């Protein structure tokens, strides 16, 4: 069989960095090709070159054995390439159908006047081929993340794309939704579409991909059939060194009870408890109420009817400010949107919660501010050329460490970590786990919300499972199997017990 896409000797330089160095890659119809590598390995650069967002410096791209140039995103689309980014390219206040046909409305009628009836009908058909029932007149802004992704895929189908590039498609999805995505990828495969699947979740690559390519520091290290290689080997190739313990969990004697939440639906027993020095996992689907619970604890949303007892006192924080004063910190779900101020320096970000404490007579004590920042940067091993570096120039893993450092500089007692390792690379993940251990050893309580089940199981002392806003199970960490948790997540308490 002829490869549909061939990349030969692609080279791309950014000021001071060679982002891609002589990369060769081929892609066959009906193939799912996993692309892995740490952050900064060159995956995104490669995708951007194929999508026309960036131009290569050297090398050749062939589609169906014909050499092509991709000067713009439009050219890429015309060549039958669709890229599905993590942050979708959809227009929120337009309907599903208008999004599916955006930019190629002429395909179903006039270029100037929308044929809405036909458009809606075609969209329904496209979604149906993917096994999804959605009203095409609904606004994209009303859809869940998973549904938005399906709209993007339907759009790729409407463009009759033969090559679909997916950048961390499972990132925002829950376990259940990921399985559905895999079914859809299977459907695309059967239609002869070639798929490049970029993901940090290596387990997924082994589940869905036929072949896997490993990038490291801009170079292609290997391309192999997934049946010929195992997960440990891929990790070793990605980081270029052995990672002895991927989850370096240490158990700690847990101290006093610092947090208790009582009266969550479905809970008849002890409530949700976090002790000092304990890592408590929260498993559940997206929308199961985990994030909402965390947000009411942190004062982002008005508290539900649940009663929150923190350090033996009833609390009901009305704003993040109040929660922070009590000694609660939160590493939010979406680092870019909620965690960091990208344009400001590492120093400004770390000291943001304590900026008023650091000042005397209205003026910030720069000396003390620098000292606090330096301490955090060295203790948390944040890699940055200087504390004045803008956050946007740091890698995802280091940005996440800054978010954490912010709360440690504030000396928070309880840390809520909502998907703390989403979208960061393997090496940075391992470091994040080590940091969590160190914090627990230091007597902090950690509430770990994560959709990554191996992570929850390995890192937690105890695990709570939520489903539809109800607390359905309390399980021991480490010894619980993924299957048990999935049963509780998908079936709830009664069924899981049988």
């Amino acid at each position, binding site marked *: 069989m002829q490869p549909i896409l061939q990349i030969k000797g692609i080279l791309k330089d950014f000021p001071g960095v060679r982002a891609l160095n002589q990369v060769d890659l081929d892609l066959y119809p009906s193939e799912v090709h996993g692309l892995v590598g740490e952050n900064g390995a060159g995956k995104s650069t490669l995708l951007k070159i194929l999508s026309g967002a960036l131009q290569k410096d050297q090398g050749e791209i062939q589609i169906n054995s014909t050499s092509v140039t991709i000067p713009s995103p439009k050219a890429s689309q015309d060549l039958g390439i669709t890229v599905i980014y993590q942050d979708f390219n959809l227009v929120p206040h337009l309907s599903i159908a208008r999004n599916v046909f955006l930019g190629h409305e002429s395909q179903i009628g006039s270029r100037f006047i929308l044929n809405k009836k036909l458009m809606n009908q075609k969209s329904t058909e496209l979604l149906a081929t993917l096994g999804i029932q959605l009203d095409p007149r609904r606004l994209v802004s009303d859809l869940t993340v998973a549904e938005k992704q399906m709209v993007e895929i339907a759009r790729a189908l409407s463009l009759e794309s033969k090559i679909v590039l997916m950048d961390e498609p499972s990132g925002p999805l829950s376990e259940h939704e990921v399985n559905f995505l895999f079914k859809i990828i299977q459907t695309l495969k059967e239609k002869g579409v070639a798929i490049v699947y970029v993901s940090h979740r290596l387990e997924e690559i082994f589940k869905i991909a036929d072949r896997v390519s490993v990038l490291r520091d801009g170079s292609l290290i290997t391309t192999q059939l997934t049946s010929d290689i195992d997960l440990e080997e891929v990790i070793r190739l990605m980081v270029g060194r052995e990672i002895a313990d991927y989850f370096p969990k240490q158990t700690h004697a847990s101290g006093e009870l610092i947090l208790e939440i009582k009266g969550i639906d479905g809970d008849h027993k002890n409530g949700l408890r976090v002790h000092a020095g304990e890592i408590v996992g929260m498993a559940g689907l997206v929308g199961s109420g985990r994030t909402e619970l965390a947000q009411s604890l942190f004062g982002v949303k008005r508290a539900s009817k649940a009663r929150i007892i923190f350090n033996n006192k009833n609390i009901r924080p009305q704003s993040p400010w109040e929660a922070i004063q009590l000694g609660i910190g939160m590493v*939010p779900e979406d680092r870019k949107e909620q965690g960091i101020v990208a*344009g400001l320096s590492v120093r400004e970000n770390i000291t943001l919660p304590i*900026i008023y404490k650091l000042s005397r007579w*209205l003026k910030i004590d720069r000396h003390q501010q620098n000292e606090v920042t330096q301490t955090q940067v060295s203790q948390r091993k944040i890699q940055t050329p200087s504390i004045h570096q803008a956050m946007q120039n740091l890698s995802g893993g280091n940005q996440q460490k800054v978010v954490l450092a912010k709360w440690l500089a504030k000396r928070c007692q309880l840390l809520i970590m909502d998907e703390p390792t989403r979208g960061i690379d393997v090496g940075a993940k391992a470091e994040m786990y080590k940091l969590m251990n160190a914090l627990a050893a230091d007597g902090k309580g950690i509430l770990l919300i994560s959709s990554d089940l191996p992570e929850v199981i390995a890192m937690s002392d105890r695990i709570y499972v939520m489903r539809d806003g109800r607390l359905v199970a309390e399980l021991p960490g480490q010894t619980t199997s993924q299957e048990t948790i999935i049963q509780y997540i998908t079936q709830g308490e009664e069924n899981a017990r049988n």
Partner: protein
Amino acid sequence: MPVIKTRVLKSYGSLLGLIGICIVLGMLSDRFLTISNLTNVTRQVSINAILASGMTLVIITGGIDLSVGSLVAFTGCSALLAMGLPGSDFSGILTGLLAGAAAGCLSGILVSFGRVPPFIATLAMLIMARGTALAMTSGQPIVKSSGLYLVLGEGYLGPVPVPIFIMAIVLLACHFILSQTPLGSSIYAIGGNEEAARLSGIKISRIKVMVYVISGLCSAIAGIVLAARLSSAQPNTGVGFELDAIAAVVLGGTSLMGGKGGIWGTLIGAFIIGVLNNGFNLLNVSPYYQLIAKGAIIIFAVLVDQILKR
């Protein structure tokens, strides 16, 4: 080498532009580069620079304040009306400042607690403040050609005209707020990423109110200085001042998206506009063509900035 050149251009582009304009005007008119003319230009710039200082703070939070021009009239009239009551010039000035702060506070509350977009909230304030100024003066100028307050417009501190001195104080104060205080850090954080700032415990609403109050205060200072210079308060004055202030901020490199910028850039921006006005007058350019040229120069400056960013 080209990298260094771009960096210099990015940091000092607007300053180089200002120097370039001055050199060209100096060659075209022998009256331009005289001490008396340059002092005159600076005095004319002072009103806009004071307004633009407050505007810079507002724009860095990602907002905008369209009301400053009307507030110049409203606060000037408030101050002079209060001076007519038993009391002193001092209480009149205080009344003007309070009027400006109160108007800014109202805009700020609408923006932060009412979640009204800044453009709309301050547009409404622009209209209301103008109406209030006209209503309380019945549309007639209030003339007051004697009193201590005139020093603010006509006086000198050594060789320095008082308006220039006041401008310097306002600029330094706003610069201090932005660069040295927690309030400044919060302002940049809100403009850079409001949600992240909120989740870091910054009291967003309070700080937004604060920047609009500061902008209102700056309007009041400008309004009182202007009244002192004209020995009267005109309810019709200040029309379009907000546009010059916004232009100065933008020419100074502060992003309308918020999160970045600074006072020094704004000062240079204000001077670019002031020098152009003065130069066009010296060269006897018709006021109609002046407007066209000013618009073109703003477009040119922002285009250059956009190209350098690439």
